């Protein structure tokens, strides 16, 4: 029995080791996240936390104001299109990297030329494979040549394409960036323990003219905690101050906790159903437009939004995110929830006695199951094939999936070229390959005239809806939980901006 007493004593003694609850006094935030970046160099990971760290530690040439979606100069003071495939930047003077290295044209030229070479193996090639070469005109002027006409370049230059210090990067490379990251952003990395945590410290010398406001929080600690229950427990116990992507039912419970605050916000991650109409596809019935229209009428999207997606979500009528440039539903036909009409359409198509097909899915299982129930109600028996994302994509690309419950976050790129064309532009994930749609999307992707782009995308989205090629559903909502008193705003690109947060 003496042992039990000892254990109790040990437990009591350890109380003094527990971290202090309030971070307000220290002006710090501890942020828990479930995924681990393979490398914190933004070019060498493809997880959201990598994007988040990228925006805090580094800067981009251009900045997109998340409130107005307006582009502003960040490391570049100004930019202009010299021709369809050439951009010229005049760079800001007096900016310094965290190691004291001065920012100038050499940094831009080195970074862009390094990342655009396929042999340097940047993880997400679509972020950089439009870059041909960058050349230095003078110390503060750079010309960027594109491989093809690519109007969305501005959006990429305001997102994933961060600028590294050339001398340091040439010396240490991506592996060295991972162990000791150096950028010019509002926060410096003071420590990175692979797979465990990243500690950030406010950059007191952050350049005043940056469109990102001067950071207020002194320290940010990012901790990788794989288990969501553990993240919740940490929030409850006061061991963390900020978590995101909290499941709706759990967010609901946390609302009742006095020292926590719950916020929800729509994300850019759109959800839709892909319907395979390829000639040798697994469900020939889907090639009949009446069957596809029946599927559109069978699903009660407003109810799904209300009951399964959560506060802040809305029904979408096109397969792109509304804030993306060119995403418009003005020409898109809409389908109301009308099971009777769905049954009638199926009967007309010769399936009065019902039909059977597979649905592939990889996340948001309750939503897949709801759709299966709606489809069953009109006579379509659906078998759910639920698997990992990579496995599902293999099936879709191998033309084995009749229907696919897809979600797509566009890598937070606020341009339609990053969403609709992935699934309808003739690429490996396109299971319709409609030549007219492909043509229109190409036009939208490649013109530099904004008016031409808008019209082409609107027409393409109109055709996709008219031909009922896919069922647009909604954008997912994400829930954020923070310690009460942390003042912050949420954005659809799911990047928490710690540089504008503060404790009240």
């Amino acid at each position, binding site marked *: *029995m003496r*042992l039990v007493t000892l254990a109790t004593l040990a437990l009591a003694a350890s109380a003094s080791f527990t971290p202090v609850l309030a971070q307000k006094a220290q002006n710090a935030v501890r942020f828990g996240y479930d995924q681990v970046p393979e490398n914190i160099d933004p070019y060498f990971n493809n997880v959201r936390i990598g994007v988040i760290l990228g925006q805090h530690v580094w800067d981009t040439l251009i900045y997109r104001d998340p409130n107005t979606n307006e582009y502003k100069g960040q490391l570049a003071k100004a930019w202009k299109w010299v021709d369809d495939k050439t951009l010229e930047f005049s760079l800001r003077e007096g900016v310094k990297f965290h190691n004291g290295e001065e920012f100038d044209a050499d940094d831009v030229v080195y970074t862009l030329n390094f990342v655009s070479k396929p042999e340097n193996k940047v993880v997400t090639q679509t972020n950089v494979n439009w870059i041909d070469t960058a050349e230095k005109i003078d110390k503060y002027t750079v010309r960027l040549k594109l491989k093809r006409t690519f109007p969305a370049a501005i959006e990429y230059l305001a997102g994933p394409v961060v600028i590294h210090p050339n001398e340091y990067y040439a010396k240490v490379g991506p592996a060295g960036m991972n162990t000791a990251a150096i950028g010019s952003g509002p926060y410096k990395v003071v420590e990175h323990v*692979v*797979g465990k945590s990243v500690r950030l410290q406010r950059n007191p010398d952050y350049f005043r003219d940056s469109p990102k406001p001067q950071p207020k929080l002194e320290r940010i600690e990012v*901790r990788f905690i794989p288990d969501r229950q553990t993240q919740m427990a940490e929030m409850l116990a006061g*061991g963390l101050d900020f978590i995101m992507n909290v499941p709706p039912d759990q967010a609901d419970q946390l609302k009742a906790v006095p020292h926590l605050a719950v916020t929800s916000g729509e994300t850019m991650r759109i959800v839709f159903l892909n319907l395979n109409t390829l000639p040798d596809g697994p469900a020939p019935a889907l090639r009949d437009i009446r069957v596809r229209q029946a599927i559109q009428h069978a699903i009660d999207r407003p109810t799904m939004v209300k009951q399964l997606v959560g506060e802040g979500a809305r029904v979408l009528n096109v397969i792109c995110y509304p804030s993306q440039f060119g995403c418009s539903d003005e020409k898109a036909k809409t389908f109301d929830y009308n099971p009777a009409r769905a049954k009638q359409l199926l009967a007309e198509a010769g399936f009065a006695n019902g039909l059977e097909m597979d649905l592939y899915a990889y996340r948001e299982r309750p939503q897949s199951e709801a759709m299966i129930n709606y489809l069953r109600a009109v006579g379509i028996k659906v078998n759910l094939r639920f698997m990992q994302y990579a496995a599902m994509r293999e099936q879709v*690309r191998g033309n084995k999936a009749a229907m696919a419950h897809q979600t797509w976050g566009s890598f937070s790129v606020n341009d339609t070229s990053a969403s609709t064309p992935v699934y309808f532009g003739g690429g490996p994930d396109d299971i319709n390959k409609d030549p007219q749609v492909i043509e229109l999307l190409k036009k939208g992707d490649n013109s530099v005239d904004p008016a031409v782009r808008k019209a082409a995308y609107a027409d393409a989205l109109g055709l996709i809806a008219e031909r009922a090629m896919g069922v647009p559903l909604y954008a997912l909502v994400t829930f954020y939980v923070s310690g009460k008193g942390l003042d912050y705003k949420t954005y659809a690109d799911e990047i928490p901006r710690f540089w504008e947060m503060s404790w009240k």
Partner: protein
Amino acid sequence: MLGYALKRLGLALLVALAVSAASFVLLRLSGDVALAIAGEGARAEDIDLVRKTYGLDRPLLIQYGDWLFRTLSGDFGQSLYFKTGVTGLIREKIGVTLVLAFASLALALAMAIPLGVLAALFPNTWIDRLSLALAVAGQALPNFFFALVLVMIFSIKLRWLPVSGSDTWAHFVLPTLSLGLYITPPFMRLIRAGMIEVLAADYIRTARAKGLSPRSVVLKHALRNALVPVVALAAVQLGFLLGGSIVIETIFALDGLGYLAYQSITHKDFPVTQAVLLILSVAYVLLTLCADLVNAWIDPRLRVA
């Protein structure tokens, strides 16, 4: 004895080899590794490039042979995800796992020995019943559930201990309790059974008749003999603890080998998964082998088996 030991050793090596082959095949059956490395949004060319770069386009048997050869020469290769040497990663993480495993084993023994002895000394009394109840509850509760209950009580309600992390010794208390209490019951039952048997033996009666104090009889004469099989069980349980800490390390975000295994599985980082599985299976096999040899050394009748 030597022949027996060699036979067991050969068998142990075969088991380790079989585990490595099975895990190699299963990992690759779980989906296209190249697709997983290339990530969401990768183009067909990217995936082909990945497949070539990592040699994934070769026949499975050749890939396995290549891996086995390099592993036997001491090279676990590079992590596909973290892009660093697997050996270095494992060296960095194994400490946490070892601390957790030995602390849990120590805790389990510290609980099991007194409870087992008491239960044997007072069979069919409330003490025995209580220890039986503890044993049943300890084995019936899944350790991840027990871990969450501990977190609820000690971290959220009482705020005595941190929920997750591995920075201070306080971070190890709850994981050690969750793992340690889970393996306590088999020890407790073994000690109880052993003690009851030993206490009924003639030499104990002799010891008592000599007028030795009951304390000396129980601790010096009886317990020492009842503990022999416990040593063997401890070796086996240690192997279980090393492998079984995957769930507990993930729950408590303890930066150890189990957590590394979890991460590598989710990222299809097969060189890491493969190396961790191999280390864990070899540890388990070797510990079991030690247990067998110790048993055979104590009890010559086993050597014929």
